[in-house]
């Protein structure tokens, strides 16, 4: 087990009260596992990703613990986390286009970054060059400014920088959503190759694009309204989902080959609940076609088969 998260709760402070964006998440990620994290916007997936590396001013740690390789991460303590950031936990931010300092040449910026972490640029440079080659960039990028690189090149450069110190956990937040299809594929494949080369031990890939996860992730975690809905191997999630939300989400995706004239897809009626005062019981109840009396109680996120967890009374087989 590389990462273990138990009952993690992170709220946003607002004038109207706490927004319960992440309300009790318990899961673990194995070594060498790429976990995809998917859900609608506002379901708390970025909150979960961010809380593992940095809580910004509006975010409030409420409860729970995060253990990485046997060590507990002090995620409530921004200074205490500094020791782990970049070395043990690293992130590829959503807007890699603006992640690099525009006033520095890329090589110089990496040097400054490494020195701030107590590493010598000269010692790491050979490895850096090797990885620049690996992602298909010319070595001269290090003497260029970020503005001289295209979107896909910047994205790959940021990926190299983020993983330079071989972190144990890498969080990739929507890194392919702003890219064109052909670049998207290159970036996604690079991500998998980083795991295969052992640059990172495990990965959380956050995206709303389920089909990208089918191509890259080993397992998938589906979130809904601040809660975990289902976690299982990718193939199981796509082909045999148990949670009604996952089922509806997967069946609403148009694919190459599916035509309106042949097969009319349906969306999920309604909208996710407000997280300021979330409903009690199952949060998907209002939109769920299978909802029944028991759904007023909150379903626990339990194991229903090998490597398969779900939070639904119907999926646990209590009466299905």
């Amino acid at each position, binding site marked *: 087990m590389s990462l273990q998260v138990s009952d993690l709760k992170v709220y946003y402070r607002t004038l109207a009260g706490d927004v319960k964006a992440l309300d009790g998440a318990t899961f673990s990620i194995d070594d060498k596992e790429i976990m995809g994290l998917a859900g*609608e*916007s506002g379901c708390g997936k970025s909150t979960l990703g961010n809380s593992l590396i940095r809580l910004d001013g509006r975010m409030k740690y409420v409860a729970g613990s995060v253990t990485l390789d046997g060590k507990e991460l002090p995620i409530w303590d921004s200074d205490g986390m500094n020791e782990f950031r970049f070395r043990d936990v690293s992130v590829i931010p959503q807007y890699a286009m603006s992640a690099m300092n525009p006033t520095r040449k890329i090589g110089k910026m990496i040097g400054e970054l490494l020195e701030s972490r107590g590493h010598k640029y000269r010692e790491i440079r050979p490895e850096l060059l090797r990885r620049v080659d690996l992602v298909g960039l010319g070595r001269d990028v290090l003497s260029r400014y970020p503005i001289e690189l295209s979107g896909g090149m910047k994205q790959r450069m940021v990926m190299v920088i983020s993983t330079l110190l071989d972190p144990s956990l890498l969080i990739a937040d929507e890194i392919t959503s702003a890219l*064109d*299809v*052909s670049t*998207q*594929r290159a970036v*996604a*494949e690079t991500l998998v190759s980083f795991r295969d080369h052992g640059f990172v031990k495990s990965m959380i890939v956050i995206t*709303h*694009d*389920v*089909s*990208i996860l*089918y*191509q890259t992730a080993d397992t998938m975690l589906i979130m809904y309204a601040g809660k975990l809905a289902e976690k299982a191997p990718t193939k199981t999630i*796509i*082909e045999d989902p148990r949670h009604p939300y996952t089922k*509806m*989400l*997967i069946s*609403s*995706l*148009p*694919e*190459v*080959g*599916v*035509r*309106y004239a042949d097969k*009319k*897809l*349906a*969306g*999920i009626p309604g*909208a996710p609940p407000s997280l300021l005062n979330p409903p009690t019981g199952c949060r998907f109840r209002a939109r769920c076609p299978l909802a029944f009396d028991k759904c007023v109680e909150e379903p626990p996120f339990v194991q229903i088969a090998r490597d398969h967890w779900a939070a639904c009374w119907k999926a646990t087989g209590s009466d299905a």
Partner: protein
Amino acid sequence: MLSLNRVSKSYRVGIFGGKELVAVRDVSFDVNEGEVVSLIGESGSGKTTIGRMILKLIDISRGSITCDGTDVAGIHGGAVKSYYRQVQGVFQDPFSSYNPIFKADRVFTMIRGEFFPHMSRSEWSDKVEGALRAVSLEPDQVLNKFPHQLSGGQLQRLLVARALLLDLKILIADEIISMLDASTRIDVLNMLAELKGRGMGILFITHDLSLGNYISEKTVILRRGSVVEMGATDKVFGNPTHPYTKILIASVPQLHKKWAEVEAEIQARGGSDSGTCLYHKAYPPKAQVVGVVDDTPTMVEVEKDHFVGCFDLGEGTCRLA
């Protein structure tokens, strides 16, 4: 109904406008009644520029766009208003299309003031209600609300409803669902398909091949301002001929097939003469004569309703040219 004939758009760039940047080059296609045409291209391929030219938001450099036989570039003064009664656009970001200070249904009131000043109140509210029903919205859920109280899908559908208040024949839908969630995306797509059933012509501009494939009859694939392949959607997707189309289709993430499998499939179908430019095989390149307009077609028909352009991908990959 709407017809583009060798439309080009170029910009003057550089100091003193010394260089010419061609954003759209010799694009021709038609949008007919009851038809969805998807215009697919990556960023910078000129797909939005084409939409903006049709909507008269920017001028056309060369070529012509005609709507029911009238040249769009020649529409001036009062005639512009009647053109906009027939042709309307909806754009990518629903959140910035509204003024956050006013209620969202102000977009309807503005249409009334501009186009229907003499319509009675009850007649008007019936009309609004009808338009909202056509986009599957409940009037009491969306009227009298501010933009922040509505979801992206609702806002986007309101904009389409606004366009429906006019005697709309052509809708330019420029990436209207790329900012929406997967669960509401499909509702907006199905709504477009229903409008198509009522006889509207829709130009569906997108970068997402699977969305284009889902609803359109005709597909136009753009690369760097030129059409590389177009035709009936099932033919373009079922039998991609141009190398660029093949690359695009191989890169689309699919739900039940891994990338490697898709690529193997396309290669297996490739046949013996893959790589030879079918366009230049049909129209051998000829020397350019100064002063004579080159009227060679820009595409060659490879099968019925399926056209491809030159196979050149920029690095001199077309050996015949």
